[in-house]
């Protein structure tokens, strides 16, 4: 038998693909108002198509202009959308790939659940899907994928958890997928049996009381019977339990903690029950692993988007046998979550190292080095994770990836400041998390909780100047950084940070003075263990001083 690999062609219905790599239909937030294709959309898909992707599946495109998910989404809801989509399909095809369009409908976007829907809306939706597919093929797309997954209407209907309808569109799994069958049969009736039709569904919803393989095996078999040519097996992205960034959401876009291809087993299982090709997705950016998935027959095709955002030439480099040139996706999901502005299109937020060598010069353990190829490398095996390099990196490239979505100021400081009852005078105390500094009971007892938010950090020396400024932006009048006396803690893991507290505070104050923001102040004090026991007393003095000198600026010496 011929060995099948990533670059073995595959024929699905009448669709001939040159390789088995699909660009996942990830929402790019690039549509113009009204859901029209923009130049950015064209460039985004053209670049990846030109790099050799077999099938470019264009993102979630709504079949309805009202029942639509948030953000700048593409639409295929009227015939007016056809010319724009046609140019998109043409662009992708000219670049050498096959073009697909994923069509979807979302009641989640307008805050509804399946049981809120009158039957009329469901019947309309089925017609909209059929018309959407017709428009997609009219626009010249080679394939249409029906989006039955994630948090959209069709998945809501399919889900054991959310579909509580009592009519024929609810009930057991056959009832819950009745609308899906009607969509597929409708499309087949209108367009014939030789148009390639894919369906995307979550093989496991990863929510309590949601669909698992037990149900979705039946779904897969039924979809095949109705005439689906290929199954795109995804997972999760249900917001019912954990919401955005919850467990289910992250199963659909596995982050750095997950191993390679955590959802491949689902596709592997579904594949046993159907005879049509199966696509798997989710963290397949490691080319060796991706190839092994296809070679071992665990899935027929792989789909990915994040590695292609990190490096649009992923396919080209893998094909050329130069995987070492790939700009690796670290699966931080910042492309999906950390949009700096609501209208920003999707892009990789990972920046290039400026090679300033700050990390190399500042690492207390002298771990970073320049290797024989002249590339900067980190001796990660010996790293003590003190975080010095990431705090000093001027390009903000070096980071600890355990929780990349975490923003200390927004996630920890802002809620604490919001809770403060006083609106006139608010202060933040940042202190060491260990030993004598743990004194918040005393804070409460002495009535300071009214004005003061106590934030404990591994070391106040880790707080960067820009973070201090952002805390002041929250409407805080003063920050007191209480750090330990290093002579008392010579073994502390973060001892190398300790001297940085005063430098960063000095810089913050320089900026405040330059900006003539003298009513705000950042002060840093060094405390012995015994003094730390009276942190609440010192804080009271600080608050008093802030109160007296609100216009004067922080010049008060606490020692």
């Amino acid at each position, binding site marked *: 038998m011929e060995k099948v690999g990533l670059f073995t062609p595959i024929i699905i219905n009448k669709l001939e693909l040159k390789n088995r790599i699909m660009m996942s239909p990830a929402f790019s937030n690039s549509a113009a108002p009204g859901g029209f294709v923009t130049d950015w959309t064209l460039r985004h898909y053209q670049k990846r198509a030109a790099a050799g992707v077999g099938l470019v599946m264009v993102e979630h495109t709504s079949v309805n202009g009202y029942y639509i998910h948030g953000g700048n989404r593409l639409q295929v809801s009227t015939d007016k959308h056809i010319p724009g989509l046609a140019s998109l399909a043409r662009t992708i095809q000219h670049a050498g790939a096959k073009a697909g369009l994923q069509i979807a409908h979302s009641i989640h976007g307008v805050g509804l659940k399946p049981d809120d829907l009158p039957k009329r809306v469901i019947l309309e939706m089925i017609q909209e899907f059929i018309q959407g597919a017709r428009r997609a093929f009219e626009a010249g797309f080679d394939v249409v994928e029906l989006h039955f997954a994630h948090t959209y209407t069709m998945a809501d209907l399919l889900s054991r958890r959310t579909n509580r309808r009592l009519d024929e569109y609810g009930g057991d799994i056959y009832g819950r997928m009745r609308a899906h069958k009607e969509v597929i049969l409708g499309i087949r009736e209108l367009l014939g049996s030789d148009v390639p039709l894919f369906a995307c569904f979550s093989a496991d919803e990863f929510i309590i009381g949601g669909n698992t393989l037990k149900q979705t095996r039946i779904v897969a078999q039924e979809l095949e019977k109705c005439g689906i040519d290929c199954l795109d097996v995804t997972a999760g992205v249900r917001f019912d339990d954990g919401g955005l960034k919850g467990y289910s959401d992250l199963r659909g876009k596995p982050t750095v903690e997950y191993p390679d291809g955590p959802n491949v087993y689902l596709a592997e299982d579904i594949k046993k029950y159907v005879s049509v090709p199966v696509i798997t997705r989710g963290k397949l950016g490691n080319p060796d692993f991706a190839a092994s998935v296809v070679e071992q027959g665990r899935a027929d095709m792989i789909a990915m988007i994040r590695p292609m955002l990190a490096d649009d030439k992923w396919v080209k480099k893998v094909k050329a046998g130069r995987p070492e040139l790939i700009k690796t996706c670290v699966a931080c999901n910042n492309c999906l979550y950390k949009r700096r502005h609501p209208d920003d299109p999707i892009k990789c937020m990972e920046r290039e190292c400026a090679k300033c060598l*700050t990390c190399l010069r500042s690492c207390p353990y002298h771990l970073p080095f320049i290797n024989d190829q002249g590339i900067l490398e980190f001796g990660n095996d010996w790293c003590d994770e003190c975080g010095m390099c990431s705090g000093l990196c001027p*390009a903000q490239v070096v980071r600890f990836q355990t929780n990349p979505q975490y923003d200390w100021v927004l996630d920890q400081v802002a809620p604490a400041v919001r809770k403060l009852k006083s609106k006139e005078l608010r202060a933040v105390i940042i202190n060491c998390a260990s030993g004598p500094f743990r004194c918040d009971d005393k804070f409460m007892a002495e009535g300071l909780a009214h004005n003061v938010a106590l934030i404990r950090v591994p070391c106040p020396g880790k707080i960067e100047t820009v973070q201090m*400024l952002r805390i002041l*932006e929250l409407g805080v009048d003063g920050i007191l950084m209480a750090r330990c006396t290093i002579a008392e803690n010579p073994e502390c893991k973060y001892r190398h940070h300790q001297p940085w507290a005063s430098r960063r505070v000095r810089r913050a104050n320089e900026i405040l003075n330059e900006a*003539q923001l003298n009513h705000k102040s950042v002060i840093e004090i060094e405390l012995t263990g015994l003094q730390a026991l009276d942190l609440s007393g010192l804080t009271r003095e600080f608050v008093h001083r802030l109160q007296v000198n609100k216009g004067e600026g922080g010049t008060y010496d606490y020692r």
Partner: protein
Amino acid sequence: MITGNRKPLTQIFEMIKFYERILIVGCGTCVTVCMSGGLKEAEETAAAIRLQRQQEGRPVRVAARVVERQCEPEFLESLDAELENYEVVLSLACGIGVQCYNLWRPNKLTLPGLDTVGAGYPVKQGLWYEACLSCGDCMLAHTGGICPIARCAKSLQNGPCGGSVKGKCEVTKVTTVPEGHDCAWQLIYDRLTALGKLELLDEVRPPKNWSKAHHGGPRKLEREDMQIG
């Protein structure tokens, strides 16, 4: 690398006082490395602007971004989509970056947020000295690899002036460098002594042809064989 200092914030505030939507763009190469105009500094400046406007009670929308190099038009494309949302660009790149931004994105005004200081090197982490004036006629072969044009306040070519005291330059008394600058000619003398090549100093160097420097008008570099179109 090209070094620079962020402009005093008051000057920046004065420049942008009429604007309410400001995009601060750092540059990811030289000024990131000399820690004056990278993403981090852009974010600091953005925070300072927001704080100042909070104090004044005026609304402002500021975002901090960085591009790899502002002097190349291709790198600017990554910000084009959001550029439309802002009235003005405050560039933290060197003077070249600011000019290029204005040149290649003529519809937006780009303001300078950085005073370019010159071409320098890091003496140690966090300290940079100027080392080259781009005079167009390198004479380092005669001076043991220490440039008297850039590192002597008077750009003297034939030995020190009378203001060299204990190896320090007299001009530094009035400049901002607290520890004082080394006299370039003292450094050259010490270096040539160590190399045993003091005879290099016997040669009297004629007046320099400054027309190769900026004094001959803006210079241009051309490689005809490399030009496309």
